[in-house]
């Protein structure tokens, strides 16, 4: 029983970060058909920002806020400079643009921070472990689950309860009609880049608390996990993205618990086999596809 509870908390925590990543990516897709392979590098830059700010002596909380704001701005700048000129072009053009963005931003990180792994000095709240009876819960897992809940809540409030949010939903559904009522596509796009960037900033803080070292190439894993979650959930659909993220988290924990040690190394291969199977059998994802950002 305790073991089961432990696994559920683990799965929720891992799934939370995947779900958030998938949320940020799928929003950009639902509005701009943007498949952004440069998403993970935003987490990396956020983490480097946090590293630099804490090393400069700023309190951790302030550094977190500044790094999230920084990633949000970086995402908006990238969106404005690199992606916006290609919006309306075939999705493949945007996809290739995202690879170019990834290269540039990644090499900027190499130049700025070097390739040596760096470690952020997280406060004890991120590293302590809570003991409840036989249950052993890292505080980071609770922080992760709680943060994800707050982010998802704020996301839905913005999208469903604010005028800006209704513009985003309208643009995802009927882009031409949205222009016809006088909404500038640029306003909607920048809103989406800001939301998607803020999510990347938050996930960056959580991600490297768990994984430890940052390198300029640490972006691959979060990017891949986000895309797997999206494939599971269906591209362009928010509820699907969240579901896909948690499903992937559950799957990973399930495998780490049940698979014999000799097979554990093949975990990514098993995950990708499942992804391929889903792409063949149910290309619109387990949630069924319909573009819907909220």
């Amino acid at each position, binding site marked *: 029983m305790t073991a089961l509870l432990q696994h559920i908390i683990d799965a929720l925590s891992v799934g939370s970060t995947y779900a958030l990543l998938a949320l940020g990516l799928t929003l950009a897709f639902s509005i701009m058909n943007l498949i952004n392979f440069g998403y993970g590098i935003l987490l990396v830059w956020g983490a480097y920002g946090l590293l630099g700010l804490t090393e400069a002596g700023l309190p951790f909380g302030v550094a977190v806020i500044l790094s999230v704001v920084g990633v949000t701005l970086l995402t908006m700048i990238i969106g404005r400079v690199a992606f916006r000129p290609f919006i309306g072009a075939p999705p493949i053009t945007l996809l290739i643009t995202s690879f170019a963005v990834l290269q540039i931003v990644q090499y900027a990180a190499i130049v700025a921070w070097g390739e040596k792994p760096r470690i952020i000095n997280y406060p004890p709240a991120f590293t302590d472990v809570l003991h409840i009876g036989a249950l052993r819960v890292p505080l980071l897992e609770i922080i992760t689950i709680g943060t994800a809940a707050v982010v998802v809540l704020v996301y839905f409030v913005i999208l469903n309860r604010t005028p800006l949010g209704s513009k985003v939903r*309208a643009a995802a559904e009927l882009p031409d009609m949205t222009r016809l009522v*006088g909404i500038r596509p640029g306003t909607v796009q920048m809103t989406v880049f800001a939301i998607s960037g803020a999510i990347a900033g938050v996930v960056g803080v959580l991600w490297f608390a768990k994984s430890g070292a940052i390198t300029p190439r640490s972006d691959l894993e979060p990017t891949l996990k986000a895309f797997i979650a999206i494939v599971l959930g269906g591209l362009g659909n928010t509820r699907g993205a969240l579901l896909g993220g948690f499903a992937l988290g559950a799957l990973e924990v399930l495998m780490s618990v049940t698979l014999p040690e000799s097979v554990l190394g093949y975990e990514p291969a098993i995950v990708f086999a499942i992804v391929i199977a889903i792409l063949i059998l149910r290309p619109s994802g387990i949630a069924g596809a319909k573009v819907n950002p*909220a």
Partner: protein
Amino acid sequence: MTEELLNVEAIEAGYGDTRVLHGVDLHLSEGEAIAVLGANGAGKSTLMMTIAGIVPSRAGRVSYGGEEITATPAEERVGLGIALVPEGRQIFGSLTIEENLKIGAACLKHRIGATAARKQVDEGIERAFTRFPVLGKRPNDSGSALSGGQQQMLAISRALMSSPKLLLMDEPCMGLSPKLGNEVYDILKALRSEGQSMVIVEESSRRALDFVDRACVLKVGRKVLEAEAAELADDENLLSAYFGIDQAVEQQ
């Protein structure tokens, strides 16, 4: 009296390699209503989308209120006073009735400032709900839950939220029962009596000719006829010769 509102000159437009409009002229004075008639594929909707700014014109000129707007993007034209009720109504299904109305007034904030816009939005919603009580009964229902007739009412109300000078109506009765179609025309007539300028696109002529000032007929992207509505209504042979559609369809 006859202040020019809209002037379309030799407009050419299309999609990809396909040219749909081959030099169409359309002129509308303030307070006037004109019907654009024609069979399916004549280019009526493309003409509306070109006036609204969604389909770019490749040649020719569009001016509105004396100013050239040929290159003005769609999102700015509504602020100038051009509102389109598009074919198929294009209601935002993921937005509530009230959100659909509010978004119709999105251009007001730029035009008249936030405070004045808020007041006009509230008044506009009230007017819409008075005009269509069925919408006011369930303002928080999503647009996708509405029937075709209710969606058309919402689409007209949404367009009116920006207090347009020029209302473009693209096949307002499409997909509606004859009874609902008549109701839509009653609304349009009421708007006409308030002095609303409009361009109305129709496949079937009879109902439209009843209440517009002039009508023109498009055929494969060219204007083949333009006349006073009364003249056309009297001369059905002329109309059907150009129109080329089944009288049976019109009898509906």
